């Protein structure tokens, strides 16, 4: 097996919270040496967010949220109130190939680490900023939080039930979307630098990057001057196309009844025929109310009620398996418990990562969503504790033990 593709690439990681860490996570997955610059005086927000193994906050190294998105990285703790700490960061930048941050536009400049300053000492550096609004434009100083970027992008006004207000996507989708596109951008810049020796600066607006995911909505407007109508889970070209309740096996979890659901789609009349047979009612295939796509679309409430009548008493994953065996697209509407404990497919593909972490022990985390035949695809280490690699990194940067001690004494490593 060859070395991981980014072996030897060093990343100075000024990111925090969610979009930026998801970007540098990809680079770590690919073998880059990623060093997070953190501070004990203002820890990364996700270090203080749940979930925690004992159910409540008791220390900065136990968040499942942080530990998921920082696997394979190192942590260097620095307090920039001390100029000596900035010197350490500069040494790290000088040996780095890539600098990543996701602060609002202008914050890196205020800290003294703007692109122009960095380029002065390292002309071929690649730097990327994943801000909410980008570096230019009248709103470039606006503040962005991941959850708010979903409605801002337009996705919320397109998502929702017919006749109801806009809905959110359910998670801060614009964040990981920015992170993965950011990783792509870094790789393209590394490719260019390898051929030409030239570094560059990359400006990302999370808002813009999210709009690339809703071209159908934007083009409906620019082609036809119309706002697309929210229409739940339905689709103009396929029916049935929905998520159906499987209530009778609902589980009671923490005083709440959690229904389970299954998604079912028929792409054409033949698939509808197979679904009807699987439901034990093959005659429905020829029923004029449902025979064609147009008819099924016109009678979709009735169609969905019939299907629900069939799914309701069954286990959701059994419905999916049964329909797949019959040649119909279906999948469990998976929740985190199902994915973790019950989805045999994901488990058999060895997707999960279980590495020993000094403070949370062995916990299950999501792994790498690709396999490379020429390179081992494995997460190399658990997420770092805050400052875990401070001494190691300073030694690598040429600091003696005495120098490290004196930096520590003045608080530069807090």
């Amino acid at each position, binding site marked *: 097996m060859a070395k991981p593709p980014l072996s030897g690439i060093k990343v100075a990681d000024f990111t925090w919270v969610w979009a930026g860490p998801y970007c540098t996570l990809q680079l770590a997955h690919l073998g880059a040496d990623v060093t997070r610059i953190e501070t004990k005086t203002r820890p990364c927000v996700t270090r203080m967010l749940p979930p925690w193994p004992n159910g409540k906050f008791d220390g900065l190294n136990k968040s499942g949220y942080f530990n998921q998105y920082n696997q394979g990285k190192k942590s260097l703790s620095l307090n920039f109130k001390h100029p000596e700490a900035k010197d350490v960061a500069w040494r790290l930048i000088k040996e780095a190939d890539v600098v990543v941050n996701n602060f609002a536009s202008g914050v890196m400049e205020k800290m003294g680490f703007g692109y122009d300053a960095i380029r002065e000492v390292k002309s071929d550096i690649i730097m990327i900023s994943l801000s909410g609004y980008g570096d230019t434009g009248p709103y470039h100083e606006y503040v962005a939080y991941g959850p708010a970027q979903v409605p801002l992008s337009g996705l919320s006004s397109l998502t929702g039930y017919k006749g109801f207000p806009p809905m959110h996507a359910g*998670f801060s989708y614009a964040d990981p979307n920015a992170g993965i596109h950011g990783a792509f951008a870094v790789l393209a810049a590394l490719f260019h630098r390898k051929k030409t020796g030239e570094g560059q600066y990359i400006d990302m607006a999370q808002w813009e990057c999210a709009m690339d995911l809703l071209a159908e909505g934007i083009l409906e407007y620019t082609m036809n001057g119309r706002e697309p109508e929210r229409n739940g889970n339905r689709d103009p070209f396929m029916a049935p196309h929905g998520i159906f309740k499987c209530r009778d096996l609902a589980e009671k979890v923490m005083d709440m009844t959690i229904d389970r659901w299954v998604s079912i789609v028929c792409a054409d009349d033949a698939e509808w025929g197979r679904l009807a047979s699987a439901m034990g009612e093959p005659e429905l295939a020829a029923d004029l109310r449902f025979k064609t796509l147009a008819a099924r679309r016109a009678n979709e409430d009735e169609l969905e009620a019939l299907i629900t009548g069939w799914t309701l008493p069954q286990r959701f994953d059994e419905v999916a398996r049964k329909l797949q065996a019959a040649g119909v697209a279906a999948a469990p509407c998976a929740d985190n418990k199902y994915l973790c404990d019950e989805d045999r497919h994901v488990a058999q593909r060895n997707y999960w990562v279980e590495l020993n972490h000094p403070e949370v022990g062995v916990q299950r985390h999501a792994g790498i969503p690709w396999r490379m035949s020429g390179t081992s695809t494995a997460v190399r280490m658990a997420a770092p504790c805050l400052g875990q690699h401070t001494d190691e990194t300073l030694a690598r940067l040429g600091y003696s033990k005495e120098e490290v001690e004196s930096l520590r004494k003045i608080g530069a490593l807090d």
Partner: protein
Amino acid sequence: MAGALSDLKIIEVGEMVSAPYCGKLLADLGADVIKVERPKVGDHARTRGPFPKDDPHPEKSGLFLYLNTNKRGITLDLAQAEGMELLERLAVDADVLIHNVMPSDMDRVGLTYDRMKRANPNLIMTSITPFGLSGPNRNWRAEDLTVWCAGGVCVLNGGGLEHADLPPLKTFGQQSGYQAGVHAAVPTLAAAFARLNGEAGQHIEVSGQEAIISQLEMTFEYWPYMKMIATRLGQKPIQPVETMQCKDGYIYLCCIEEHQWRGFVEIMGSPEWAGEEIFKDRLTRAQNWDVLKVFLEEWVSQQTVLDLYRKAQAKRVPFAPVSTMGDLLSNEHLKSRGFFVEITHPVAGTHKYPGAPLKYHRTPWQLRTPAPTLGQHNDEVFGAKLNLSQSRIDELKRRGVI
């Protein structure tokens, strides 16, 4: 100026969104992408629209035209042995072959990495499928809705305590395709970078389901860490983070830090109720959300979206409008950044499309050509590139290979 990837040669056998979006990301940075479509029918995205004047036409689908900018287009029937042979010949001098052919169809036509590697040992082959190439569900039929569900997102969205009977909700569009595509572009480029360092080509396999699971934010880890099911029906732990209706549209209230809440209270003119003990911090505001919501809805309903957005941002409170498509197209910030781009296509006409996801200072994202018409570059690619004679090309066309 040349794009960052301007000497990368790519073959894309892509339908709908995942492989085409991967190909688009690379093509828009300068790569030479030859897109292979089925003869006569082409990429299924050509049937999906939206279409100008709602007139379905294979050359006018907005989804297809968006996803295939900067590519050359050829047709090839891979179900015929000669079609696969021509694909092999194209792969001889390509750097990358991206595809989203389903595993069962890969077996049927013989689209295997071993075969492609024999044609070109340096080739990078990227296989994007809904569930990956191994495991019990590898051959599961899939549409965007079912993959988005299998990845664990739908269960987080929709309903709410008042509407628990409404089903979990899909996010608009073809999101599992986009995420599989961009998650495939990352290892593909990494492998191309490794080749510049002297490494060989390799086979990359991407699972759409796994790409989605890896984005679930904190919700996945609630089970391994705390044995809690993350659901759309739970009460939020902190508030306000909600969509609310103004006089002229919707706004997303997001003020989860204490200083942000104080800023919002000032904007509201510091009403007396805001000083109540039950709203003293973000946790109590969430516990008493049913009461707080009534106060906020009443006040917000008297405001206009832009005015409230600007006032909030002036106090560094990250509110955002719930943008409509019209809002986006007329937005002054997006205009000044030149986000939307105008593309003229010979059949579909001139329309505005979403533009660059990122701005590269040295190697700009560029639109060189609109999406190809079906088989537009057949003669150029089979003739000039593969040296087939015109009579041979005509014969292949007659037999439906091309």
